[in-house]
């Protein structure tokens, strides 16, 4: 696998959407190719950052009460 093919699958790899065989080929390439490795690390870090920043908020307690009231009349 060359760098172009490797980077083409970057997000599918990070999203765990590849077949085990393709995933292994990418892993092999990343081990031998620091530039691709750096790019994958950066994108992985970005996705972790995104999830951490955006999941702090949950449904307000009042909304939970409202849904229960509407559905079950309490």
């Amino acid at each position: 696998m060359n760098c172009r093919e490797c980077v083409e699958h970057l997000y599918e790899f990070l999203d765990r959407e590849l077949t085990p065989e393709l995933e292994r080929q990418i892993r092999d390439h990343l081990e031998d190719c620091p530039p691709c490795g750096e790019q994958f690390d950066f994108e992985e870090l970005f996705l972790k950052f995104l999830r951490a920043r955006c999941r702090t908020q949950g449904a307000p307690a009042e909304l939970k009460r409202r849904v229960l009231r509407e559905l079950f009349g309490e």
Partner: protein
Amino acid sequence: MDEKRASFEREALVHLDVLYRVALRLTGNGSDADDLVQEAMLKAYRAWDQYQQGTNAKAWLLTILRHAFINEYRRRARHPETTDIDAIEPFAVFSEIQDDDPQGAFFDRIVDDEVLRAIDELPEAFRETLVLSDVEGLSYQEIAGILEVPVGTVKSRLFRARQLLQGKLYDYAVGQGYIKGTPA
């Protein structure tokens, strides 16, 4: 407690936080998000007999939520979609920062509200795809089902949504002086 209610609480109500976060990104404000979630939960409870228990309740609920959004909220949205999303050029942030900040340390300085604001600026088709994937962790297949588009479309939207969002956050970080560089 009757069986219908018990199973709905067990399988559906546990996803209230997910529904609320997605509703917030779709509608852009808390009060509409409350109403949208309420509406979706009501529709889901009425249709609960049609849901196959033990399958994918989260994806099923998100499909209902999105339909409710399209039918009742989108048409009166303050910012109707005018962007031609195919014309948007992605900006490769990594190639800009790989010499100065390859670990993306500047991200750490960007607060939650700023990230959410940047997501809210994305075109709707990109925003909903990115939120379902990157915030809520759904698979390409699940997202394709909810948005009723092919998996290939999910992939290409996700690619461009991520690049676009990185570009916005990079611009912001440059503007704040968190990182040197030229805005995209």
